[in-house]
């Protein structure tokens, strides 16, 4: 690999997280109070906006507090390498639409171990066998979960 995927990047996530939760709080507060109301005075009961309304106001207040605390603490360090996993999941989802879920998962395990981690054939095959046992043996056959068979599967079997 030419680029360094373990290089750390400093991101002010300790400030960003409260900013995001603040935004969520504002959004929920606006919908709660604006759209759903707070108290149904004809039926004398709280509306569906009552509880989320209170909570979102509290969230707004505490997000501000957390933001101030976050300003004082050092930035968190992030590395590219950690993001390979969610990336792989996205690829698996995409592949599932074409070749189905079970083949996608098996191919993922194979590629990851053999090409990325450069493991021996033995390790790779044992891992593949375990995954096949869990996915096909337990989930698919025994528990009868219908996994998507993908575009190609539909073409062949559908």
């Amino acid at each position, binding site marked *: 690999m030419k680029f360094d995927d373990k290089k750390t990047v400093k991101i002010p*996530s300790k400030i*960003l*997280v*409260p900013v995001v*939760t603040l935004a*969520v*709080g504002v959004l*929920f507060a606006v*919908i709660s109070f604006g759209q*759903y109301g707070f*108290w149904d005075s004809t*039926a*004398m*009961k*709280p509306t*569906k*906006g009552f*509880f*989320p309304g209170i*909570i979102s106001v*509290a*969230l707004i207040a*505490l*997000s501000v*507090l*957390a933001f101030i*605390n*976050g300003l004082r*603490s050092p930035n*968190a360090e*992030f590395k590219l*390498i*950690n*993001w*390979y*996993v*969610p990336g*792989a*999941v*996205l690829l*698996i*989802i995409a592949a599932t639409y074409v070749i189905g*879920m079970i083949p996608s*998962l098996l191919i*993922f*395990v194979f590629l990851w*171990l053999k090409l990325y*981690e450069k*493991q021996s054939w033995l*390790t790779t095959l044992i*891992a593949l066998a*375990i*995954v096949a046992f*869990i996915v096909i043996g337990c*989930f698919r056959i025994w*528990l009868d*979960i*219908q*996994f*998507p068979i993908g575009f190609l599967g539909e073409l062949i079997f559908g």
Partner: protein
Amino acid sequence: MENFALLFHGFQVVFTLQNIGACLLGAFLGLIVGAMPGIGSLAGVALLLPLTYKFNPTTAIVLLGALYYSNMYGGAFSAILLNIPGDSPAVMTALDGYPMATVKKRPGQALFTANLASCIGGTIGMIILAFLGPALADAGLHFGPAEMTILLLVAMTSIGWLVGSNPTNGVVLTLLGILVASIGMDLQSGSPRFNFGNVYLLGGVKFIPFVIGTVGFAQVMKLMDEKDDKAKESGITERLTIRGSLLSLHDVKRILPPAIRSGILGTFVGVLPGAGATTGAFLGYAVQRAFKNEEPLGTGAMQGIAACEAANNAAAAGAFAPLLALGIPGSGTGAVLLGGLMMWGLNPGPLLFQNEPDFAWGLIASLFIANIFALMIALGVIPMLLKILAVPVKVLIPIITVVCIVGSYSDTYSFYGVIIMLISGVCGYLFEKSGYSTAPMLLSFVLAPLLEDNMRKAFVISGGSTSKVFFNSAISTVLTIVFCVLILTPVIRAILKKTGILKGKKTK
């Protein structure tokens, strides 16, 4: 004494070769399904229900009881070994179980502790059930929406103990968890809220994919840092034998008090309508905070594992009281079980113990036996399970990723689950990295909807009067006082400390 004779009769009903075999099979299968993240006890029991078709009614019910019961054991396995809670009560187990297995390098003992505590808690629950069942069920009925509201408020205050070193951040995520949980169909008004026009969000954010993501998938992302770290791997292998997993006498002594306490507490929580095993495990853990612990909770303390696992299983047993005596299931799993029992002509309800004593006591007896079997099987598979930890992290990463995907898919039967898992996993990772602990969020996600629903029902019943909610009955008055004490104690202590009247050094 009459109950004792009846229970004995129940054992006589169960003790046939076929029934014992069915019980063993049920305990084994239930354990495995319970250990699979995403399946959980509800889907597990539902999926395995067809197995019972092949047997005669008594055997079928024995099998069903064993399935349900041993399911509760399984959830702890993946929580302790992989930090992926198999079901919601196991969230608490992971708090101490995973650190104990990895940081303290005592995975065998952690599993042993969980199972032993489960067995103790379950046995206590079943003894109480056998002797006080119908009376308990009636007592549970006194907890109406108003009483449940305050009980849940009391439970929510103990989230404060989980928030760790940074209380503000912990509470921010607690509140975020509540808001996320409020997405979807609103029961009381029968209309959707916060779904932003999305048809998938109509059904809300599902708990199982949410927890698999926040805890499990975030864990995988974190593991990428450790995969080339050789030192991490070697330490564990030396204790992978069953001998290395045995508990010392000192350990057992440490486990017993929390297990017994939680067993009793859990049983009573399990009896309450709609409270369930999660609330039980949660309160068990929270109560343990009040007692002296050799190691601080949350760092891999055995007492923490024992407290929540015992309470969890005791609550599962306690839930049988309203189920059998009143025909009221306390949870989704209970409802499926009820359906299974009714399919076999057993009508749980006020007439059950009069009309069908053979069935009823046979079922209770089979729970006792299933409890013992589940413990034995669990202990038998510990050495096998421990091998998971011997697998190098870099090989484990793709395998756990697959388990996360398959588990979350199986909960919703669609990619919706996988997408929730992915999003909550990425968020969970970012939160943990930024110094926000995610455990409080998971718990508020479970408890807050219960709280809101009960609170709104209580307001409807009281006609909008707040005082009638908090002082509705003797029970709610007492609970309100407990709640006020819990809320005010830290405040008063802080004030006293500031003014110099109290010089405490036991601050965290």
